[in-house]
């Protein structure tokens, strides 16, 4: 087992929200969480739970209403504005203003805290940019313009920019939003690689529970009133995940750590056959309102033959055979 790293970021009795002269809106109070080096931390919670607010407060884009934030053991307030960008980098969901900018120029801007008043790149700066491009797999696309690459590649560019900024803590607001499944997985495994190989501490918010529960070392779960942290499996075991996300339509399986739709009252159906079609058939039958019950009068058998999979539907003495699951579903007896 990997030893827990040095604490990079921690909050103590933090209150986040928006304060103005007249009144303050507290989004959430008593937040005490931490994240260590070499850790991938996924911040999850339902829409409007305050995920972005927490992340923006962590990187000092908005002030905390109360409580403390410590980065590297130093109070956030005591870190100057020239020092802070060397400690923490932030990737927001804000669209890039100039989409004609090249990938390399965009990543080079990550060196902003280190360059002189006019932004001259030294050899060391250029090297850092090259490394960042290489680590994110963007080196071959470095000359392309941001509006000529895919959404996933654009997100990689932003991660490279964060890497070029050379901070130990990387905070990202929904880096996998709007991405398809393979790109989403690609981004999260890249983040994971950065924590393992570079010892970075990455905190990212996401709605993609599946990947978060599978890949993150630590989950920060924002659940209406409070924040709960722990390894994904700890939160599953304690039933925290189920409590936070279950709804009349959604049930959580603690055994597999996945969500599924809640089905209404079910009819019984007897099911026999060979894997892997067996479990898929059960899934399809479930969608049609059937639960497996070997004593039922309606029986389905699935077998593989010379022409591929075949399904046999038997009801009393009547027997019919189908070559696709779709046909079987169409011919299932109704109420």
């Amino acid at each position, binding site marked *: 087992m990997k030893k827990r790293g040095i604490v990079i970021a921690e909050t103590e009795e933090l209150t986040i929200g928006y304060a103005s002269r007249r009144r303050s809106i507290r989004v959430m109070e008593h937040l005490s969480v931490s994240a260590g080096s070499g850790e991938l931390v996924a911040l999850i919670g339902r829409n409007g739970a305050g995920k972005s607010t927490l992340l923006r407060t962590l990187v000092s884009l908005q002030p905390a209403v109360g409580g403390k934030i410590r980065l590297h053991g130093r109070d956030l307030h005591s870190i100057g*504005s020239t020092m802070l960008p060397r400690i923490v980098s932030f990737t927001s969901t804000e669209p890039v203003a100039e989409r004609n900018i*090249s990938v390399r120029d965009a990543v080079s801007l990550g060196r902003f805290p280190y360059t002189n008043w006019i932004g001259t790149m030294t050899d060391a700066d250029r090297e850092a940019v090259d490394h960042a491009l290489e680590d994110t797999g963007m080196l071959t696309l470095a*000359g392309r313009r941001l509006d000529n690459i895919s959404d996933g590649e654009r997100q990689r560019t932003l991660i490279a920019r964060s890497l070029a900024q050379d901070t130990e803590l990387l905070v990202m607001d929904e880096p996998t939003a709007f991405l398809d499944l393979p790109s989403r997985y690609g981004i999260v495994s890249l983040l994971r690689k950065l924590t393992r190989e570079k010892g970075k501490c990455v905190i990212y918010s996401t709605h993609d529970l599946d990947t978060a529960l599978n890949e993150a070392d630590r989950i920060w779960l924002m659940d209406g009133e409070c924040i709960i942290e722990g390894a994904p499996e700890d939160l599953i075991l304690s039933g925290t995940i189920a409590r936070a996300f279950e709804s009349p339509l959604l049930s959580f399986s603690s055994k597999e750590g996945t969500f599924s739709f809640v089905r209404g009252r079910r009819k019984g159906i007897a099911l026999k056959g060979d894997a892997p079609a067996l479990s898929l058939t059960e899934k399809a039958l479930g969608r049609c309102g059937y639960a497996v019950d070997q004593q039922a009068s309606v029986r389905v058998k699935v077998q593989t033959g010379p022409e591929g999979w075949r399904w046999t539907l038997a009801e009393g003495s009547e027997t019919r055979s189908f070559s696709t699951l779709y046909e079987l579903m169409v011919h299932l007896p109704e109420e």
Partner: protein
Amino acid sequence: MRERLPSLKLPLAMTGLFLVTLLLFCADILFGGTPLEAGDVVRALFGEGTPESKIIVMEFRLPRALTAVIAGAALSVSGLLMQTLFRNPLAGPDVLGISSGAGLGVALTVLTLSPLFAITADSPLQGWGMILAAWAGAGMVMVIIMAVSSRMRDIMTVLIVGLMLASAISAVVSLLQYFSNETMLRTYVIWTMGNLGNISWQQLRALTIAALAGMILAFVMVKPLNAMLMGETFSRTVGVRMRSTRLMLLAAASILAGSVTAFCGPLAFIGVAVPHMARLLFRTTDHRTLMPGTALFGAAILLVSDLISTAPGGGQIIPVNTVTSLIGIPVVLWIILGKNATAGRR
């Protein structure tokens, strides 16, 4: 792509552009409304030749060409600053009503204050008075636009507000015209046509100082300008102080656009179009290259416009404003159509 080749390509493009601008500058002195032999022009530049040619060259053509260089550079850089500041490719002194604001300042001085205090066109007081009034007008509109664009993310909303402001201002100016006397009215109407030649050495000095100040202020801001290409949130997280940066950029853009507009009248579409031409030529978004590039390109374009405007000869002159519009409008249309074409493909 300027990938891996900047060491060679960039200086080449910059030198080329510089030489072209220099050539145009010489051409602008050699050719003008009244025909003069090239030899006479050169002699006049060195203080020799006929008194007539000396007056034409030293009092008209040289200040005119210098004005074109300064005004072209200043307006274009002002446009570049505004495009980055407002995250809007269509931003520019005239499009957002900044020129109108400067015009209001000028109208107020020319139409109301000057007759009141009996200030003549040649007095230095009018030089700086007009500049200050134009700055104030330009700055006022800029602050309004800034306030709107901080609330409205939508580019079109900001542009429409700019258009409305320009209309409102022109209505106010019409009202002023109604109450002013004929001589002042004529001065003002001639000013609105845009004129590079109506500038005295004294006024040219004021314009140069103001434009230089604006340019220096702009160039000091190249690093934050580059960060702003990635968006405001990013800029803030790498340590850009947005409030003061915005204020500095607003000041620089107002000084540049306001000073030029005060003396040369509204020169349409230079500020919007030239930064895009420079981006196309240098193929970069880096302000360290774009800013000098845009300045040179703007000088070149205004010199060309001036050459065209004096081309008919025999004392006939096409208003510069007309020429710059004819050059700038196709570029602006190309931007709008190009942007929409890409949006449609998505």
